[in-house]
């Protein structure tokens, strides 16, 4: 875990960024920058820029800054200095090299986890400003390739992973079929109108983690819930456009999602263990559609499991005995205050729980969220270097199992564990629940 690696890492780029840059003219660059910074923002943005006293208290918030041996260029305010302040000072007349660096800072050196706004005495929302930079990159068409591909997929299929409609339905029916061999009368009800719950997942679940849908169905079955999953587009709650600054597509995604809940006439939406999807449906997407708060009650898996356990709808057969620790994902702890509930679930299902520090709202980022992991393989190595502190934090717990109730966190933490050889297994809360709960197993002789 040496920090010296940092020096040898070249800042990566990719074809989409480079091709995009080659197409840009100075006029277009300054026009887009000025349009976004002056017309798409207001007094709030000006106050953020005018209020920063350059005190540096935000530095200690950032896992990039801490992981790179306090390299000043990774301080949150420094990221604003290297992007927004200079764009404003030069009235948008910035070079292509500047933009190459700006793409990198906004997309790969910031997880928009909003930890720094908890460390700034004035509460300046630096993540918001990094998202403005991403918005500029989007309008200049210099968004990194892999994440842009997920947005393209959203735009065409309304899901992140190019899952076709028949593949989606087929996957659910396949999971139902498998489930019915083990659990009596298990169903994954498709497009059932007027039920209590619309259950929604992110597209990677049907694409390559179908087992998670199976587990969710078993939990719903054991708890006796009246639920459904939509059979047509609008089932995916993820929203990568929210992270590329493509606000128009981001709004379309959220609209399709809420409309499928309205079409099914459900009472509330329950979602799997994903952080950014929760941010999209609970915090961002609804605003794009002019809803101050979501038009449906949006329930994250943590809240849902907690409800099932405390209401006695599912009971724990045998507690999980391996030593576990819990990672608080930004979008459900800092973003929704679910960290205490998550702890209660862990304590109800596990007998050997060790806290990592710092935790709850102050937890260190997984390094993958905010679209960083979605920028793909060209940037993986630096992502590992940029989150050394997380590896140190994990190692200090001495836990065998790391519980992370978020898909993005999962991907990031698995990479870190592998890279730093931590010998830990990453699990969802749902995995633990599935392992420890009382299930309605099919016994033909009864």
């Amino acid at each position: 875990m040496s920090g010296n690696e940092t020096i040898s890492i070249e800042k990566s780029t990719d074809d989409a960024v480079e091709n995009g840059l080659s197409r840009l003219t100075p006029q277009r660059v300054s026009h887009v920058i000025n349009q976004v910074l002056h017309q798409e923002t207001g007094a709030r943005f000006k106050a953020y820029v005018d209020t920063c006293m350059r005190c540096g208290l935000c530095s200690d918030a950032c896992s990039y800054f801490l992981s790179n041996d306090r390299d000043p260029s990774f301080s949150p305010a420094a990221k604003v200095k290297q992007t927004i302040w200079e764009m404003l000072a030069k009235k948008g007349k910035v070079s292509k090299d500047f933009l190459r660096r700006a793409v990198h800072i906004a997309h790969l050196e910031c997880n928009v986890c909003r930890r720094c706004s908890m460390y700034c005495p004035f509460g300046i929302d630096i993540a918001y400003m990094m998202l403005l930079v991403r918005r500029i990159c989007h309008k200049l068409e210099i968004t990194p390739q892999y994440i842009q591909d997920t947005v393209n997929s959203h735009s065409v299929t309304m899901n992140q992973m190019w899952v076709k409609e028949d593949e989606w339905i087929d996957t659910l029916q396949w999971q139902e079929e498998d489930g019915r061999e083990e659990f009596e009368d298990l169903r994954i009800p498709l497009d059932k109108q007027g039920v209590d719950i619309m259950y929604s997942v992110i597209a990677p679940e049907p694409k390559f983690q179908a087992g998670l849908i199976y587990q969710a169905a078993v939990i719903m079955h054991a708890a006796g819930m009246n639920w459904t999953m939509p059979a047509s587009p609008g089932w995916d709650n993820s929203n990568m456009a929210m992270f590329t600054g493509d606000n128009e597509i981001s709004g379309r995604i959220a609209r399709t999602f809420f409309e499928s809940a309205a079409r099914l006439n459900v009472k509330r939406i329950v979602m799997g263990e994903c952080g950014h999807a929760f941010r999209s449906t609970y915090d961002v997407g609804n605003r794009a559609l002019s809803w101050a708060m979501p038009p449906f009650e949006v329930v994250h898996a943590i809240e849902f499991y907690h409800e099932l356990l405390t209401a006695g709808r599912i009971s724990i057969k045998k507690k999980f005995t391996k030593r576990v620790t819990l990672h608080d994902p930004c979008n459900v702890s800092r973003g929704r205050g679910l960290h205490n509930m998550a702890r209660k679930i862990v304590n109800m299902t596990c007998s050997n729980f060790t806290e990592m520090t710092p935790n709850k709202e102050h937890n260190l980022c997984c390094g993958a969220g905010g679209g960083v992991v979605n920028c793909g393989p060209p940037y993986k190595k630096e992502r590992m270097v940029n989150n050394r502190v997380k590896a140190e934090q994990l190692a200090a717990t001495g836990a065998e199992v790391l519980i992370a109730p978020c898909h993005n966190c999962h991907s990031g933490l698995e990479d870190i564990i592998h890279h730093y050889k931590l010998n830990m297994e990453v699990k969802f809360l749902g995995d633990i629940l599935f392992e420890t709960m009382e299930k309605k197993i099919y016994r033909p002789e009864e």
Partner: protein
Amino acid sequence: MGPMVWISALICIFGLLVKFILIIKEVYEKERYLLSYITVRHSLRSIIAWLIPFYPRSTRMRPVYYGISYLFHVLLFLLPVFLMSHIVLINESFNLSWPAMNDTAADILTIGVIFALVFFVLRRRFIPDVRFLTSFMDYILILMVLLPFVTGFLAYHQVILYKWIVIAHVLSGEVLLIVIPFSRFSHMITAPLTRAYTGSEFGNIRHARDW
């Protein structure tokens, strides 16, 4: 007291007032939805949490800087208001008065303020991340605060060129007042606003602490 004192004081107060009104007006015109998230309760919760010394985690991570900065801000307001010679001047003009601070105490605290400002300069020079963020303007801002305190200290002790020092004291104080609404010194009104908004987003929407 001459007219410049009143002019500069009025520029400061009205400048800040106009700035505040313009911010609210622009929010109303362009981002009115922000107001639907702000609550008085969560705004105050956040502002108060950040006024309690060493309560927020980030302030505990840099205790020396934060401690000095906190005292500096308190003294910046207390010293000029409770200084005997300032109260005498106000009394001559308005026949108003209030209890004054002991002159020796004020003298020592003035040295404290000067020390704090020197510390800020050194910090900007030698702490790498702060140095990276620092521009020439940051030193100018520090100098603008430093001058009234240094000249005030010299004037009180009447060491050299008393008359000129007093003039420099009055002038630098007036310049500082005039500059406040037009510079980042206006964080005295924008910071509570940004804090209130972030505090409301965290408290009201995200049900989380922001300190």
